[in-house]
């Protein structure tokens, strides 16, 4: 008789099966760890992507703030802000503006979902914004004339200079008006003129932001005006005021002269001068770096600005006689590229001082190979030589090198 085997004697689990179970458990654990790690990484990545996205939104908001502030500055260069706003996605921006001379620094802060981005942008006001010379009457150039611009007194690199008149622009025969920007006249231009920019027929005259009333809307504790620095608002009621010394009107000070004013030694400063009568003044001998903005001068009647050498002579066609320096005129007519050339790109061996012009003259008569290559280039687009307007000016200067050395030499 066959008997059933007793459970007490059941065979133990085979080692191979145990290994399999442990392996499965380990693999499952590893997979679980990978899954959990992946989920964690994904969550972190999602967070990072979200933060990055929000930073981009904040940066975008800051850029929108810059654009908006720039638009407002284009409408009004003196706009002082602050400006702010929000985008459709809820991002916000705030822009503060700091003016310094012709520059405006915009500080824009964009914010969204806890992220903040900041931009600092510096803008420079272009001289091309304004008319250098604006008139509703005739613009009459009896001699050569120059209309140009600078970026600022502290950064006197050249800029476009514009002129406009509602009337005619007239240039005497044989004379030349050089305009680096645009020249326009409502009723036409009667002579050819040299314009580096372009000639137009339309335009509008300059639109002052002040009136005589607005300039005089202050109190005038002072009643005596004398040469030197004016220290308080001053109103002079005399029919004629004649100052033999230089007058300086600092910023914040207003001088009101109810009669005619004669300034025999010029006027400087950043204040305001209002003259009810005629204003006769001499040009100042030197520019002052401490008043880059310059004065605001308002005259109800005529203004005559005369060189210190000028005096009246009714025997002269123009009623005045003045000392005109050909060297001054030469440099007044200097093309834009010359200062860079003289500083940075002199020909090999050329003196970097006033003697350069004599060297240029001698090289024109018997040029060396290096001079010729410097002047005319080597025929390639990489070295095309000097532009014709610069070689023409250098030729003129070389012809005058003696006069330059005599009047502008050390």
């Amino acid at each position: 008789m066959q008997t059933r085997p007793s459970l007490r004697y059941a065979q133990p689990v085979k080692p191979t099966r145990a290994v399999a179970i442990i392996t499965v458990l380990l693999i499952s654990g590893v997979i679980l760890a990978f899954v959990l790690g992946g989920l964690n990484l994904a969550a972190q990545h999602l967070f990072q992507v979200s933060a990055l996205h929000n930073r981009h939104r904040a940066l975008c908001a800051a850029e929108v703030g810059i654009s908006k502030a720039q638009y407002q500055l284009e409408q009004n260069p003196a706009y002082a802000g602050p400006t702010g706003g929000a985008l459709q996605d809820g991002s916000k921006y705030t822009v503060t503006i700091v003016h310094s001379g012709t520059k405006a620094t915009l500080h824009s802060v964009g914010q969204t979902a806890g992220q903040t981005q900041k931009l600092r942008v510096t803008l420079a006001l272009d001289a091309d914004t304004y008319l250098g010379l604006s008139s509703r009457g005739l613009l009459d150039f009896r001699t050569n004339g120059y209309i140009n611009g600078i970026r600022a007194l502290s950064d006197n690199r050249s800029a476009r200079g514009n002129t406009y008149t509602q009337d005619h622009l007239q240039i005497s025969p044989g004379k030349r008006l050089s305009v680096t920007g645009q020249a326009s006249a409502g009723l036409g231009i009667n002579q050819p003129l040299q314009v580096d920019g372009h000639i137009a027929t339309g335009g509008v005259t300059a639109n002052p932001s002040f009136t005589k009333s607005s300039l005089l809307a202050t109190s005038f504790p002072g009643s005596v005006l004398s040469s030197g620095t004016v220290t308080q608002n001053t109103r002079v009621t005399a029919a004629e005021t004649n100052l033999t010394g230089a007058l300086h009107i600092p910023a914040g000070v207003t001088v009101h002269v109810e009669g005619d004013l004669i300034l025999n030694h010029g006027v400087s400063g950043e204040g305001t001068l209002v003259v009810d009568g005629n204003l006769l003044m001499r040009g100042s001998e030197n520019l002052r770096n401490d008043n880059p903005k310059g004065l605001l001068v308002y005259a109800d009647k005529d203004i005559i600005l005369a060189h210190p050498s000028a005096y009246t002579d009714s025997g002269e066609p123009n009623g005045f006689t003045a000392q005109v320096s050909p060297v001054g005129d030469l440099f007044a007519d200097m093309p834009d590229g010359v200062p860079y050339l003289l500083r940075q790109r002199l020909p090999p061996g050329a003196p970097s001082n006033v003697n350069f012009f004599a060297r240029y003259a001698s090289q024109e008569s018997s040029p060396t190979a290096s001079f010729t290559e410097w002047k005319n280039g080597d025929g390639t687009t990489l070295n095309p030589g000097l532009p014709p307007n610069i070689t023409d000016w250098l030729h003129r200067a070389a012809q005058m090198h003696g006069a330059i050395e005599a009047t502008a030499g050390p």
Partner: protein
Amino acid sequence: MKKLCKFWPLALALIAPGCNDSATIAANLHLTQPAVELAAAKFDDPEGASLGPTPSDYVNNLFGNVNPSGVEVNVGLPNYAYFQGLLYSQQNVFLAGQVRVVGGLIATGNVTVAGNGMVTTNPESQIGRVNVGQARWKVESWVQE
């Protein structure tokens, strides 16, 4: 010829051949007669002061031999005399000689230039003083902080 001719009234000018009376000069220069007569009385001699900035500084500056912070380049032209700022006249303006307006010039009437005058736009002189339709700005720097 210096001072041979004055801006005499018409009656006296008639007896001085070649000399113009103040009314003729005023019409010629597009100025008012009172302004011309005032100039005849007050500006009948040169000022006599030293003229212009130190010439050698200007040319030295062109070649980069002078510290630019101490001397102005390009604006310090030899023999030129200056006005810095914005000139505004409800009537006429006359620039006599090598004078340079560094800023701007606005006239309701006529403007006459005799003697190689120059007007240099300085935006700093006009900002806040002149309204504009559209200002032009250039981006100088763009920094993300």
